[in-house]
């Protein structure tokens, strides 16, 4: 099993979610984070213009079985892509074990 952590633009979230659903990945968790990176954004507040690289992003975390990793990655890489600076990152990390709390199932059975 692998954990896939994705940081995307909030405005691509609906696309990514739809794309994941189409590849039958119907389970994940997400939350909002602030990202610091190459992208800069201009703001104005009471006459002070400023530019910040602290930009609101959405983070998706999902754990998939090993044979699903590739397809999930491809799906996300496609759906989250706009081509401009700031599209975000994907990180794949190892998972030792997973449990479904309801049934106490372990391993890949617990994922769906």
């Amino acid at each position, binding site marked *: 099993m692998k954990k896939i952590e994705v940081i995307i*633009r*909030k*405005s691509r979230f*609906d696309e990514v979610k739809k794309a994941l659903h189409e590849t039958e990945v119907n389970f994940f968790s997400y939350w*909002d984070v*602030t990202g610091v990176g190459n992208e800069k*954004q*201009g*703001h*104005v*507040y009471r006459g002070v213009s400023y530019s910040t690289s602290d*930009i*609101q*992003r959405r983070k998706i975390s999902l754990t998939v079985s090993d044979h699903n990793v590739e397809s999930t990655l491809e799906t996300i890489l496609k759906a989250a892509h706009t081509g401009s600076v*700031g599209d975000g990152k994907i990180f794949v990390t190892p998972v030792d074990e997973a449990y479904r709390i309801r049934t106490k199932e372990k391993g890949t059975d617990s994922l769906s």
Partner: protein
Amino acid sequence: MELLTTNNVWMMVCTALVFFMHLGFSLLEVGLTRQKNAINILFKNVFIICAGLLTYAILGFNLMYPGSFLAGVIPDYFFDLFGLSAPVADGALDLAYNEGYTYWTDFLFQGMFAATAATIVSGAVAERIKLGSFMLFSVIYITIVYPIVGSWKWGGGFLDGLGFYDFAGSTLVHSVGGWGALIAIYLLGARLGKFGKDGQSHAIPGHNIPLATAGVFILWLGWFGFNGGSVLSADPSLTSITLVTTCLATAAGGISAFLVSTIAYKNYDLTMFLNGILGGLVGITAGADLMSPFDAVLIGLVAGGVIVFGVSLVDKLKLDDPVGAVAVHLACGIWGTLAVGTFGSMAGFDQFLTQLAGVGIIGAFCCISAFVILSIIKATMGLRMEEKEETEGLDAHEHGMDAYAEFGTVHDR
């Protein structure tokens, strides 16, 4: 003199209350839409009251109260069109203006009304219209369309001659705004994601219901001035019965929308309750001075039902009205105007037909005007934000600002 002073005090209080309705509209609209467009919505509302007062001073007021017409329809605006025509120039004031209140009170009270009509549109087109285009449209609508319609009845024009009755503006204010809203949301199209490919309607929940609720309470408060001031004097019996009918119809509108929507959707839906309250307010507005308390309750009960079905009808027509402006201001505005022919001291079949005629004529005029103005704007400046801008939020693109900079910002491009 004593009476004039008292009348004038009451009218000034009412003016202040009608002014305060603009906060009510702002909070209602901002509460029922999404965080990413909150600054934009507030900006529009703040703009409307400011620009509305100025344009009404420059042009609208004299256009609306002309007393004379060409062919009875087009206000005869060759005199006194620009600028307030103070009865006596240079600061000295004419107290002989009328028995009810001074010229200046009159202007300010009417100016607050004028701005209301455009605010109604603001809620319906929220979250997708270009700010510049909206500002242009609303200025034209307040400055030209609203006063012309107003002049037909309150300015002594042909509808007044026909016997059309609209006490405080179910049609002259609310429907005028409501028709504008209807045409605008038709031309604009729905917000992205509002209707699925399969045509199914999706809910886009508002982000701050406590503020929306506060907005409704403030609007109800403002209506004490809106209807109470439309008596145009402090006449004790007329003002007090007006406030009673207003409050009872409102209460009935709320309770009825709550009951109907609970039965229809098996759920205590606060937003329907709130819309029902507003529906009751709009519904009683045309005949608030004609109704007995019991009539008022009936009008409110019907208005509550109109709201629940109106909201769902708008949805079925694939029109996207985030705050329910069409159901509240147009549907209940029409209902209230017709109710004058059905309930209360003027009820009668002839009156009903006259009311219907008024509704139809004004509706046609507003629709055509709004359609022409908006189509020209659409063709030139464009009406709608680009898809990317809409997805990412109008606040980021038009204002570069966040409404709640620390509760999860929404900036993202």
